[in-house]
């Protein structure tokens, strides 16, 4: 082939490939952006049932949680219209709902029974009393512990332990010679990783992010107590390098039998009792600890389905949401994969089902969810909604920076006092720049 022909072919090819792909999707196809986790992947497997019943095709865009957050945020703020349904959480929903970026889900059918959604979930996914996202599954956090190690330590886990008990039990269960750490907790920087854990923990120590005038509160004794307690306990009984451990690292340690206790998301219960766990037969659960101040240290989260305002396929999108978050979907999964695998934490009726009550972590998950109130999460009054976050647009950025300072303190790169001092400055500066003060 001559050089000229090669170049002409190349030109034609590049123009063809450029031009040929400008075509749009199909009319009866909805595109859904979602996260990669067990429940969401399972739902994708049942999509054919929805298509058969409605004739609506579904295209899935599955992304890692942080990538998804960036992608859907860009799409909704630029009115990109790439997605007809977005999987978002309790942090985004009230903010986006308030901005008018989401379609209100106030006209769901009577058959759907919106009143059956757990009040904690519908409360966190609403703005001004209007539901903007339907929970697919909900979660809180709780203590997962090794019954054999607890017994060996000569202790008994109460259903609702205190932090003092957790610290003592962690010390008693720690066996460095056998590579067993008494407790594994998140320390990794990131507002949704270590930041979420320490914020939920701080609630039980009487701390809060802001006072009623949006002043940062990291200079209070309650925050110093929280961080000193966490670091003291983890230095004594936690795994090496805990400052960089997140959910997955701790799950890995726990499943390999290297943690006596792990306080984390309730969805982890099915992992630590699943086939990949080496300790599945000796795991039990308890409520997240408290300090006797009236607030426990568990968080509240839901992955929910929302319809972005401006989509051309609003009716089809709502139809899908009704199907995916319905009682019928739960029964479909239960019939095929067992009750332990249904999406938890979204509907009241699930916890009234006698079959689901037999699942070992069902009651503890419900109790954990019910004990977290996003509208009243702190001992002293606070101006924000949210348990492990404050539902304001600035929070993700601020909390990521603050959690980096905390992680540096856990790693011994600075003292707790220095980390808190920096956190105070970071937060106040950001809030001032954002016009809160």
């Amino acid at each position: 082939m001559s050089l000229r022909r090669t170049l002409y072919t190349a030109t034609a090819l590049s123009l063809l490939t450029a031009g040929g792909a400008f075509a749009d999707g199909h009319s009866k196809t909805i595109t859904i952006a979602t996260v990669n986790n067990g429940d969401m992947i399972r739902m994708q497997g049942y999509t054919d049932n929805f298509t058969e019943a409605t004739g609506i095709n579904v295209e899935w865009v599955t992304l890692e949680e942080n990538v998804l957050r960036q992608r859907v945020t860009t799409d909704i703020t630029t009115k990109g219209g790439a997605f007809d349904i977005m999987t978002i959480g309790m942090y985004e929903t009230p903010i986006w709902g308030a901005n008018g970026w989401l379609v209100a889900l106030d006209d769901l059918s009577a058959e759907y029974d919106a009143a059956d959604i757990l009040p904690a979930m519908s409360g966190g996914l609403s703005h001004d009393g209007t539901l903007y996202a339907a929970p697919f599954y909900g979660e809180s956090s709780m203590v997962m512990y090794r019954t054999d190690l607890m017994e060996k330590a000569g202790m008994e886990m109460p259903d609702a332990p205190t932090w003092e008990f957790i610290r003592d039990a962690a010390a008693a269960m720690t066996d460095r010679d056998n590579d067993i750490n008494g407790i594994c907790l998140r320390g990794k920087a990131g507002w949704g990783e270590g930041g979420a854990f320490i914020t939920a923990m701080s609630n039980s120590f009487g701390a809060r992010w802001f006072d009623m005038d949006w002043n940062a509160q990291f200079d209070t004794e309650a925050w110093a107590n929280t961080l000193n307690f966490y670091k003291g306990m983890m230095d004594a009984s936690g795994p090496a390098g805990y400052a960089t451990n997140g959910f997955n690292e701790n799950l890995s340690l726990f499943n390999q039998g290297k943690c006596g206790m792990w306080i984390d998301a309730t969805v982890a219960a099915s992992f630590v009792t699943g086939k990949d766990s080496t300790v599945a037969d000796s795991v039990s659960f308890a409520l997240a600890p408290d300090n006797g101040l009236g607030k426990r240290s568990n968080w509240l989260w839901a992955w929910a389905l929302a319809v972005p305002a401006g989509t051309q396929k609003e009716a089809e999108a709502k139809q899908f949401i009704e199907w995916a978050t319905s009682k019928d979907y739960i029964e479909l999964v239960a019939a095929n994969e067992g009750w332990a695998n249904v999406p938890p934490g979204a509907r009241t009726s699930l916890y009234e089902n006698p079959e689901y009550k037999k699942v070992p972590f069902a009651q503890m998950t419900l109790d954990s969810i019910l004990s977290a109130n996003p509208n009243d999460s702190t001992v002293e009054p606070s101006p924000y909604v949210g348990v492990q976050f404050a539902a304001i647009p600035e929070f993700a950025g601020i909390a990521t920076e603050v959690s980096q300072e905390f992680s540096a303190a856990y790693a011994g790169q600075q003292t707790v006092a220095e980390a808190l001092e920096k956190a105070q400055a970071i937060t106040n500066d950001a809030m001032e720049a954002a016009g809160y003060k």
Partner: protein
Amino acid sequence: MARATTTNRKIITTAAAWTIALIIFFPIYWTILTSFKTEAQAINDPPLFFNFDWTLENYAVVQERSDYMKFLWNSVIVAGGSTLLGILIAIPAAWSMAFVPSRRTKDILLWMLSTKMLPAVGVLYPISLIFVEFNLLDTRGGLIVVLMLINLPIIVWMLYTYFKEIPGEILEAARMDGATLKEELLYVLTPMAIPGIASTLLLNFILAWNEAFWTLNLTAANAAPLTAFIASYSSPEGLFFAKLSAASTMAIAPILILGWFSQKQLVRGLTFGAVK
């Protein structure tokens, strides 16, 4: 004595080269190895090197869950299209800079390169808005244009370097023989720069293939390439390392094979003009 020194130097150099090569290759090796483990084996401590039950289950799951061929085809189109388009624009640009430079040519070259120093996220919103305005979101055409623009400075720089090695007198002779500008570019310059153009094509194809910011942020279901395929298996809540490794192996396999077969041309092109 001199021979002993030379032999020692050879041994040290060879050992150093192997060590560096192994360090560079280890993550790829580990990814491929992990793709044949179960999820439990993937997180085993101490890590398992060979003593585990090899399984193809992860590949089966990935095949079942995702339309690999669709992602692959998008990658081929987007990487290939952006590279070809880039070359078509860069050849005349590099020609003018190499053979008819102005006082500002060096400045322009540096300015072009400096655009690579801008963090991509800094222009995420402007580019997204342009894409929305021109209905380019989630189209391969839009991605081809963006990736071409991103890699254009590198393409121009590389071609400029190769063209500078070609004596200008040859082009002058062609002109004196009556060659038009088009003929000069097509029949004189391009054939002489084929090794350089080939290595530029290869390198930019690899860069476009691996690009994972714009390909994730400007696509959804239709134009998503293999980078989105990999991202769909990453999760901060759930241990899916074995499946993620299988997806990664499937995504890097075509480019690894291409790189393997073209390494001679790639090295030749990259070192072209390095030693005078």
